[in-house]
């Protein structure tokens, strides 16, 4: 089974609609972000702000000052990119309880091309004080993240994708805020992945095992605050780290992991991610191949660390 994380977002919002503090804002993308589901269930608490992401973030901030829990939704490129400074100054600086659900993140937006493929959003969002950054790996995890974000006070950036991702978690999955999830244990290398790349990291680990290389695989869903203890523990165990993300290698998960390691336990790291280039139009799988984000690229990265 597989589902796109944005599809789950719409469904969970409907489930949560009984909580009258929740309001949902969108910027003319309700059908794409799936907030349309909430609009159908709860029209009085749904606000289409039109094509004006900056205004949407400010309005969400205003709602939050009055005790609401606003979910502001748009594509990642417009949330983290266009409305960066509104998020910084009107949401994070006053530490307001706004949840930013950024869909269509990364290359797998596909045919819309480079203008719409946010590969810098994790970097931008994690540089802001007070901000939590979460990149769920599958449908179930997305559901749990959205629910946990409602329970948590403070700004949260939730990165969601357009493409369907395989189910990695069962019905009983318990999401631990800020704690990486160890999906596989091995002593030869640690693969730390996030978002849709977690499934590929698991595939890579299975293939590596056939060659006698036993890898630890970590689902680093929470990129900020990063799970420092787990990174150090796994680095001490394996001495080799590969980070995997559908994001630029500048400022994303790879950088966050290196920030921890370089200061506390210098360890060789290979990064799988977008290498300082813009995206292009194409089918998601073709793009992942062209930009070096396949299972084979992960395997090659593992082998590159001597």
């Amino acid at each position: 089974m597989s589902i796109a994380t944005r599809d789950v977002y719409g469904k969970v919002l409907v489930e949560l609609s009984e909580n009258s503090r929740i309001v949902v804002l969108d910027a003319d993308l309700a059908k794409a972000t799936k907030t349309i589901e909430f609009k159908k269930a709860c029209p009085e608490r749904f606000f289409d702000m039109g094509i004006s992401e900056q205004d949407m973030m400010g309005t969400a901030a205003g709602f939050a000052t009055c005790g609401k829990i606003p979910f502001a939704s748009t594509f990642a490129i417009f949330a983290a990119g266009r409305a960066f400074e509104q998020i910084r100054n009107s949401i994070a600086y006053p530490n307001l309880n706004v949840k930013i659900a950024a869909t269509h993140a990364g290359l797998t937006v596909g045919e819309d091309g480079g203008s719409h493929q946010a590969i810098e959003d994790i970097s931008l969002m994690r540089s802001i004080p007070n901000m939590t950054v979460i990149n769920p790996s599958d449908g179930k995890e997305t559901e749990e993240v959205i629910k946990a974000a409602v329970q948590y006070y403070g700004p949260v950036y939730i990165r969601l994708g357009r493409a369907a991702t395989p189910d990695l978690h069962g019905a009983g999955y318990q999401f631990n805020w800020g704690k990486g999830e160890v999906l596989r244990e091995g002593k030869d290398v640690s693969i730390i992945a996030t978002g849709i790349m977690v499934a590929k990291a698991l595939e890579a680990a299975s293939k590596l095992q056939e060659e006698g290389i036993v890898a630890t695989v970590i689902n680093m869903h929470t990129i900020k605050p990063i799970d420092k203890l787990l990174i150090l523990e796994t680095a001490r165990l394996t001495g080799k780290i590969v980070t995997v993300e559908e994001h630029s290698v500048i400022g994303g998960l790879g950088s966050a992991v290196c920030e921890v390691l370089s200061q506390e336990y210098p360890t060789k790291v290979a990064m799988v991610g977008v290498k300082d280039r813009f995206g292009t139009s194409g089918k998601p799988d073709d793009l992942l191949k062209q930009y070096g984000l396949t299972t084979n690229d992960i395997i090659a990265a593992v082998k590159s660390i001597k």
Partner: protein
Amino acid sequence: MEIDELKKLVQSIRIKIIEMLAAAGSGHPGGSLSMVDILTVLYFEKMNVRPDLPKWKDRDRFVLSKGHAAPGLYSVLAERGYFSKEELVNLRKIDAMLQGHPDMKRIPGIDMSTGSLGQGLSVANGMALAAKLDKKSYRVYAIVGDGELQEGQIWEAAMSSAHYHLDNLTLIVDNNGLQIDGTNAEVMNVDPIGDKFKAFGWHVLEIDGHDFVQIRAAIELAKNLTCKPTAIIAKTVKGKGVSFMENQVGWHGSAPNQKQKEEAIAELEGSVTQ
């Protein structure tokens, strides 16, 4: 309050603005002095607030979108009893409660952190929408600068306020005609401001922003206008009350030195007794 009493109050607030800016050695006198008559009427006569309970849920909200005019707002809040007037001289000092721009996390009575221009009206819209949703009767007030109208987000927000029929929102434009690089007309023309808001679906009232009778009447009228938000375009004088600062571009963002401070205060004290 009698008009004479109000005049005395505003002059003492103006003196505080000069004193705190001189103590800080930096900050924005021009736009603080231009809006302070309006702000005083709001906080002392028109807004339903409780300085003893700054976060009271049913209070009227205020957003200073032109956040650099913080000294004006801080002086009014201190005078209204939100915090000690002694705090004012710590403006802009390290770790001070009174930050260079309004910070809601530190300062009692500040409903929104602002400073980056163009963002306050969107926030005010969110507050007004929340009031409607919760069927609360509180009103939301916001002050923007006229130069600030050059920010695109203002017009995104202006569209929104009208679209959602936010008649519980009053926006005041502090129309002093000047900005850092020169007059609005030279830098980037914003006129006709009233026509722009009308075209965006707002009620528009145009007043003299230093005439207490007009300020009171406009704020009161806006409370009773329905279906649309109201913009009060208040014609003001930048640096109002201190003749060497009035209508001078250079006094947008520089603090008076000791001599200028004394001169300004002498003039302001004189104007109270007249």
